[in-house]
């Protein structure tokens, strides 16, 4: 079975599981949870501080459990879950408030860029995280799809409704924007 066929089969299985969950099968939700947990967890890991990754991930799935009975299936479950994850991340940062954010990643007053003087890996992770959060949504999205969700460029093109060349072009612009945010050039 090729990858497109696998994806179609997975989407069909998701739909069947959602239907079972609506009928009250918690086991069906468990299967959905295990299937999509790594993708959501990794996506959250890229944009939320390590200590809160699990909590935000769980919030995504609780929100999914609450909303699934009304899920109409107009988009694939994976796409819907991606939007829900983004929404929960925004909510998370709204809760934390700007004060806390500025403590996590101070900006250089002169350039407005992130301070990046010889950071260690953890510090660098925070800097990269904050830079990702500061990117326009389409740029952040393609970087997360490629790195956090490990989607191939072909899969990204399909998910975003672009052709392969357009997806690669968007990726290049996203990397440029990230480079600028990080003050690398």
């Amino acid at each position, binding site marked *: 079975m090729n990858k497109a066929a696998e994806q179609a089969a997975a989407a069909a299985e998701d739909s069947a599981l959602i239907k079972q*969950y*609506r*009928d*009250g099968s*918690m086991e069906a*939700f*468990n299967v959905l*949870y*295990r299937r999509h*947990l*790594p993708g959501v*967890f*990794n996506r959250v*890991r*890229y944009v939320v501080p390590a200590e809160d990754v*699990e909590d935000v*991930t*769980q919030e995504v*799935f*609780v929100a999914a*459990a*609450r*909303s*699934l*009975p*009304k899920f109409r299936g107009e988009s694939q479950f994976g796409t819907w879950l991606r939007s829900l994850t983004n929404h929960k991340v925004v909510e998370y940062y709204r809760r934390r408030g700007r004060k806390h954010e500025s403590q996590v990643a101070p900006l250089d007053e002169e350039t407005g860029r992130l301070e990046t003087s010889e950071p260690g*890996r953890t510090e*660098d*992770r925070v*800097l*990269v*995280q904050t830079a990702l959060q500061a990117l326009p949504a389409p740029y952040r999205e393609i*970087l997360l799809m*490629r*790195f*956090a969700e*490990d989607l*191939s*460029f072909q899969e990204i093109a399909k998910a975003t409704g672009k052709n392969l*060349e357009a997806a*690669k*072009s968007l*990726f*290049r612009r996203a*990397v*440029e924007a*990230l*480079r600028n945010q*990080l003050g*690398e*050039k």
Partner: protein
Amino acid sequence: MNHLRNPSANSDLEDRLADFADRARAQQVTRAEAEADSELRSLQQTVIRLSTAFPPKWMDEAQVRRMQARIAPQVRQAWEESVPKWRSRQSRQRLVMAFAVGLAAIGVLVLSPLLGAGTSGGTAAAITPTKAALAASAVAAVTLAILWFRSKH
């Protein structure tokens, strides 16, 4: 600086950057390529920085189980709060049964004068094939209605 490149050079850069990102994600490269042009090399460095800051992480089974156990009661509660009562399996089964009984009752009410007229004469033979067919049709209609209802939900 990409606006200074011609489209084919841009396309080549994008292909090479995408290919580099694939290899960085697979941890096959850990630094920008020396032979790359300065713009590509600079972008490769950003890709490396991103992939180094977040090396691929696979969740272990213990973590998945722990998270799953923690979320289970919340999922149950979320389902109970969000699913309308009539959508629950038990409620729906009761609804189907009530629907079937209702239809059967209507069928009996509709058919009883006909059947009653036949039996009032005191002979079982008064139930004509037409009446029997009507009764069978009513039962069939109820059965079909139940099957239709189940298939829709």
